[in-house]
């Protein structure tokens, strides 16, 4: 489709503004001479984006089993809630009692769900929550007067974890997975020492496995005075079933857009609240929103890591998450976990008849298969592209890195058995096509709005903006 710039026509924009008859105070030498924003009439703008949207695939279009991203259905009521005009207030307005109530109540719910003592909703996304959490670890040891430098990260971690650690001046120390998919306890023990800040663990991990040794792991860390950080991106299968606080977690971030179902927006906005145990509460970002003597307000802590957001985080997302939790209630939360896990295990059992399953055991919300049983020349990437032709968004591919040609599949609780069966059937057909007609795969997608994209070409001589030719 043509670009906005290519459709632009001088003089066609007609958004009416009546200026006042007042001279500007801006000196000539600081003024802009011309402004080349594309100009389109309203009808052409709406058509541009309406037709562009047809080239996109969202959860509203079909199943989106993108592993570790929890692409569940986003209820429309949350969008209605998020548009209540009274909530659209300035962050420094004093008339904020309703807004503070929502944030405070949400913090309470998140504490109850995770078993933590206090939450800050400032971080704007999961990775932002991660760095906030690591900053808290850093501040904790500074307060203790200890200089520790290394953070243990299992090799089944999320991609953001090592980067978050290094952002805070720490060194990531990678620990291997065991043959059953959990953390290799021996490797962990060998790496322990007084320079260990703690562990940054994803549990269930990115293989979809709940580490059965979790209590041992957190104990090992705690025995060395370290802190246990949970990457809560995979909270979905634990809702109402188990609390991270109960298995020794000191700090956790949640991805509200994943677990609490706010629309992912083509890449955000998300929200990554961080929860901590009682001892760590003073280190949470400033200001905190708290209730004292039945009055809601802000509080600053001198031990805080400081502010991590221009204001108080992504309130628009918090409101949606609040709305979601209230819609479904305690029983709904437990239902999510049970159904997410049921759906994943069902798919895993059915798919392992056709694809190689590295860890053949019970999984939580997601699981990994790979392309090792595929005929030569057919790769995970081909399978992913071909899945598009069957009306599915592909799973996460080539991740986790520890499994070659991985496909990380997370169906989520909102998909029906019918959809799971259709996906399984598609995967079966693709396997057959790989044998009988591999070109169908290597040239896939055949039915998408555009053919397979050449990403190498994109990177070779990057063209990142429109230029008139």
């Amino acid at each position, binding site marked *: 489709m043509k670009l906005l710039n290519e459709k632009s026509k001088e003089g066609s924009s007609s958004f009416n503004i009546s200026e006042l008859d007042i001279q500007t105070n801006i000196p000539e030498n*600081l003024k802009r001479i011309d402004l080349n924003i594309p100009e389109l009439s309203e009808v052409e703008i709406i058509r541009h984006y309406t037709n562009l949207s047809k080239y996109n695939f969202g959860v509203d279009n079909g199943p989106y089993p993108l592993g570790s991203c929890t692409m569940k259905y986003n209820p429309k009521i949350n969008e209605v809630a998020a548009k209540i005009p009274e909530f659209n207030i300035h*962050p420094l307005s004093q008339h904020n009692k309703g807004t503070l109530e929502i944030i405070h109540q949400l913090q309470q719910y998140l504490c*109850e769900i995770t078993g933590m003592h206090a939450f800050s909703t400032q971080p704007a996304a999961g990775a932002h929550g991660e760095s906030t959490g690591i900053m808290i670890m850093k501040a904790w040891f500074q307060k203790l007067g200890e200089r520790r430098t290394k953070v243990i990260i299992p090799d089944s971690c999320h991609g953001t974890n090592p980067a978050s650690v290094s952002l805070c001046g720490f060194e990531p120390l990678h620990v291997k997975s065991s043959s059953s998919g959990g953390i290799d306890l021996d490797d962990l023990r060998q790496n322990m020492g007084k320079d260990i800040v703690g562990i940054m663990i994803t549990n269930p991990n990115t293989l979809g496995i709940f580490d059965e040794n979790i209590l041992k792991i957190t104990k090992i860390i705690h025995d060395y005075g370290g802190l246990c950080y949970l990457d809560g991106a995979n909270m979905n299968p634990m809702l109402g079933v188990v609390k991270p606080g109960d298995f020794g977690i000191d700090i956790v971030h949640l991805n509200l857009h994943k677990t609490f179902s706010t629309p992912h927006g083509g890449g955000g*906005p998300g929200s990554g609240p961080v929860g901590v145990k009682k001892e760590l509460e003073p280190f949470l970002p400033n200001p905190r929103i708290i209730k004292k003597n039945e009055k809601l307000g802000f509080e600053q802590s001198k031990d805080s890591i400081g502010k991590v957001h221009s204001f108080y985080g992504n309130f628009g997302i918090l409101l949606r998450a609040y709305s979601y939790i209230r819609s479904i209630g305690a029983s709904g*939360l437990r239902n999510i976990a049970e159904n997410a896990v049921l759906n994943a295990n069902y798919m895993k059992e059915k798919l392992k008849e056709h694809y190689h399953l590295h860890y053949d055991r019970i999984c939580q919300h997601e699981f990994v298969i790979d392309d090792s049983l595929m005929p030569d020349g057919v790769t995970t990437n081909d399978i992913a592209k071909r899945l598009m032709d069957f009306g599915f968004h592909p799973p996460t591919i080539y991740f986790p890195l520890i499994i070659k040609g991985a496909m990380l599949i997370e169906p989520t*609780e909102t998909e029906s058995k019918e959809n799971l069966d259709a996906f399984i059937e598609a995967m079966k057909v693709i396997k057959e096509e790989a044998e009988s007609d591999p070109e169908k795969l290597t040239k896939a997608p055949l039915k998408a709005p555009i053919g397979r994209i050449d990403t190498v070409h994109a990177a070779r001589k990057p063209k990142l903006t429109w230029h008139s030719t």
Partner: protein
Amino acid sequence: MDYISNTDNDRALMLKDIGVQDVMDLFKDIPDSLILRNPLRIPDQLSEFELLRELENISKKNRRHVSFLGGGNYNHYIPSTVNAVTSRGEFSTAYTPYQPEISQGTLQAIFEYQSMICELTGMDVSNASMYDGATGLAESMILSTRIKGKKQVLVSHALNPLYREVLETYARASEIRIVEVDIKDGLTSDFKTDGSAAIIIQNPNFFGLIENLDGIRKKAEDILLITSTTEPLSWAILKPFSEYDVDIVTAEGQSFGNPMNFGGPGLGIIAVKQDYVRQIPGRLAGETVDIHGKRGFALTLCTREQHIRREKATSNICTNEGLCMLAASVYLVTYGKNLGKLARLNNQLAIYFADKLNQIEGVDLVFDKPFFNEFVVRIRKDIQSKISHIEIGISLEKYYPDLENCYLVCCTEMTPKEYIDRVLDEITQ
């Protein structure tokens, strides 16, 4: 409500196919002692109408009122086109466009956004968004220390104090030293570059004043110039930063089509010179072709990113503010060149209000300098109490003790002349 598509019957069939009796058999990796025996202490489910009733009751505890608050978050009108586009499920319920063949909508929108940001700033490269103005600035600060190999950064005292707090947080974590640059008459004063990687200047600055950046490059030949803008609507009538040879432009883009929402989600804008294309944090969409040679778009230069480079990545950012970016694109193209008119209207309203206030005994304009849509006034205490029901501006004492009784007042198209006149009446009556 629940949002589960399976029925009891489906679940029974699936359990049977898996070969277990009960769904809890699938949780047996979890130590039994950890499994919750009681429901969470969270209230029962509500129907949609019950939920909305509750939310409306809570929302009414906020009061909507006449307000002249700005200082990093602005009450601008959001054209009707914006929500019409961003509410489309194809956009809002997709994720990061990892699979370009079914994400051309998002990708082209990013590419167009990048193009418009580069046009507005004059820079070469824009990414697909950061979390907000403050964190985008903090990441730029870190970036500058990496480029220059120096762990010290100069920061103007006229930078939004909340942003300065965020910079300090990140500086502590990354072990960077921040040196503040004084202000004089509300503008950033002279500075020494020794040992520093960069200088960070806000423009229009926190007081709404337009910094004169002519010649700043000469003063900062050996360091990076980083700008921060909280009110990018000003860009529509101000000379683009590229003309001052700025290296990194950051901004809070909330003004472009995103609601105030108590300060979030915002839209972190970042744009850099071509030199830094491989250092810029976050996603980039690039033009490419498909297998048939047809133009298409894809995320590119991903080797900068955390999922490839892990701990060596330029940033840990993954999820950004995609939908806010889309809103900004629709906003910008809806106004088109009329964005200049809108900016002028904002400027005119602020000038009008400042002039009128300045004529009132007991109210004084503090800085006699060109400003965009914000300005600082000192208000006598008796007048303050007279208009205590109006949020006349952000009180500055807390951040600048010498600005006692001073307020940062902001005018936009949402505070039209009639509103301003009404407030003036209340003050003078």
